[in-house]
């Protein structure tokens, strides 16, 4: 049976735990998406934007030098960082923005953590002539001020949310509050495979293009399917997009890497599947970080894009079923991989994506210990580029932004 079912369940997860006022809008969205998804013209319009605007298909790069650090594994990178706006987020926003127009709505709202989804939404809104407001936790607006400016340049309004923990989850609450009031003319363009049905399904379908391309590229250009597929998991949209077409390939291991922050034992992390428990947050039943009363616990990660205390319900299901494996990667491991990839391959990854790279390196080394004869291939979703993370890297590595040597000055 294909998942989700008609009420949005992935096994015991998913659903539509939202105020009644939004149920009608969700039904409208389901109908509009089903209609669009069955319409060849919609697919043609989307494919044209993906090719001529976003730059798809994205290539697969064989990371020869990086692989030297991965035991006997060969690491390949699916280059979502080469998309317009610098991350996989654009796959989703182009589809949902087209859908917004199709529903006759004139305004989109979005939540954003690091700002990547906000920038992508503002970009699609500029392209398609939609009004756009982005909600961002107040703390995140301070951490990611360049992205605030980018959204404003693109013509979007940015609202900082000072409620609660002032991060992504609170931005999502505020976007829901906006939506419940403005649903007549507004589409809530959720950025991840979370939230109430149909979002986890709809966003997955729009991100699926990653694995549709990657699977074919592996067969055409590399002679075989990969042995392992790896991706970072915050809400989990790049991971579900990367995993999806491989789920039926039993020989392909699926690995999701969650933000381990300062380490799970420290309590300061965002490793929802590894250290969370099932509950209901933002419209879906899934794993979440919560205390014994069911209050959401704030997550922590060096990567703002993974700093979320929930996870998409389909990942919760894949974890329970054992089809995918989820492991934590600490801030330090991610930053080491960030530096290694930058210096061995000349690719500055988003810190989010650096979690996937770190996980793949660890996986490769572990396999080499367990089975020295094995030479596995690991296909990593490099979900975004790291330009936005230069400030974080600056402070993490203690860089001063000063030149190494100054020459040519008067004596």
């Amino acid at each position, binding site marked *: 049976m294909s998942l989700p079912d008609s009420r949005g369940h992935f096994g015991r997860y998913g659903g539509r*735990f*939202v*105020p*009644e*006022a939004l*149920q009608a809008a969700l039904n409208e969205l389901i109908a509009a998406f089903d209609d669009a998804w069955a319409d060849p013209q919609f697919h043609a319009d989307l494919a044209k934007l993906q090719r001529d605007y976003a730059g798809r298909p994205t290539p697969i790069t064989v990371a020869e030098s990086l692989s030297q650090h991965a035991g006997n594994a060969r690491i390949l990178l699916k280059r979502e960082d080469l998309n317009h706006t610098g991350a996989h987020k654009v796959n989703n926003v182009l589809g949902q923005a087209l859908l917004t127009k199709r529903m006759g709505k004139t305004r989109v709202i979005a939540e954003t953590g690091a700002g990547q989804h906000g920038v992508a939404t503002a970009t699609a809104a500029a392209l398609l002539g939609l009004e756009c407001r982005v909600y961002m936790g107040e703390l995140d607006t301070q951490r990611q001020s360049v992205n605030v400016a980018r959204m404003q340049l693109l013509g979007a309004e940015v609202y900082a949310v000072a409620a609660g923990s002032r991060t992504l989850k609170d931005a999502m609450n505020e976007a829901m509050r906006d939506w419940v009031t403005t649903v007549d003319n507004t589409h809530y363009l959720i950025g991840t495979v979370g939230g109430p049905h149909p979002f986890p399904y709809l966003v997955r379908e729009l991100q699926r293009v990653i694995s549709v391309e990657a699977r074919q590229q592996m067969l055409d250009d590399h002679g075989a399917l990969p042995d392992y597929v790896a991706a970072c998991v915050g809400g989990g949209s790049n991971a579900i997009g990367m995993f999806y077409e491989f789920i039926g390939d039993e020989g392909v291991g699926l690995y999701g890497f969650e933000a381990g922050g300062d380490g799970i034992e420290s309590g300061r992390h965002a490793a929802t599947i590894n250290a969370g428990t099932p*509950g209901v947050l933002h419209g879906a039943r899934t794993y979440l970080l919560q205390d014994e*009363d069911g209050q959401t616990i704030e997550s922590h990660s060096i990567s703002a894009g993974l700093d979320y205390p929930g996870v998409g319900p389909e990942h919760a299901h894949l974890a329970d079923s054992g089809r995918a494996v989820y492991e934590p990667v600490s801030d330090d491991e991610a930053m080491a991989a960030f530096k290694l990839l930058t210096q061995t391959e000349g690719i500055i990854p988003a810190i989010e994506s650096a979690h996937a790279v770190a996980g793949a390196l660890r996986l490769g080394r572990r396999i080499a210990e367990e089975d020295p004869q094995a030479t596995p291939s690991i296909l990593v979703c490099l979900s975004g580029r790291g330009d936005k993370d230069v400030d974080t890297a600056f402070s993490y590595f203690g860089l001063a932004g000063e030149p190494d040597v100054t020459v040519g000055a008067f004596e």
Partner: protein
Amino acid sequence: MSQFTDPKRLGKSGAIVARCLDEGRPALVAYFPVGYPSVDDSLEVVKAVVEGSQGRGADIVEIGIPYSDPLMDGLVIQHATTRARERGVRVSDAFRAVEAVASKGATPMVMTYWNLVEAYGVDAFARDLSAAGGAGIITPDLPPDDCPEWFEASDAHDVDRVFLIAPSSTDERIRMTMESCRGWVYASSVMGVTGVRDKTSDAAPVIVERARAADPTLPVGIGLGVSNGEQAAEIGSFADLVIVGSALVKTMGSDGRDMAGDLVKLRELSDDLAAGVERARR
């Protein structure tokens, strides 16, 4: 006699509504979050809102449980519940508030986001609520067509289930939702979050009318945006329950520093609201 007579549909809280209607007035429902300004203060508040200053106030008290992600709530309630959480309120404190309301002879209910019930244990929550004297739970984010566990627990422990309908609900959903309720149905009068509004919504009479057409055997409450006696009288002329929340929370203007003064204001508002429902149908 009111039109509401089926004890199976009315449960505990709907029976109170029917009794009020038999007296010629709608029921007054007061929402207040436990733990604000502190747990002990909130126990005083829920008692005071029942008593008013003349011994006449709310018929039903909806005890809100502060939650980390209150996406249905406007700023007044968000700020109160954030403070309550900072001050250490626990889910189990709601049962103390339930007992406090019951001690004054009014009907206690709980309004809570669903995850708190699930974390407590669905059956255990219903059991402990019932043991404390609570009549039922209002669940703003629980879809009635996807919660078999809650039906089982609420039936087993004889507590009422109140779900919400909204102006955007289809007739079919209104019918399904009302069928799922026991006690009464909570109708949002506006598309939006909780909060004080200057004017009552034009959509309020429409949604009540639609609910009556869908199921005439269940009382209909109107919430969102009722803040004074005048609005209560207006809404109460057609709704069976008038629900007031943010306006009551706002009376705690000193944030606990002057409880005596704030309780005077709260009792006055309670008097005004009680007088409003009293004259609503005269």
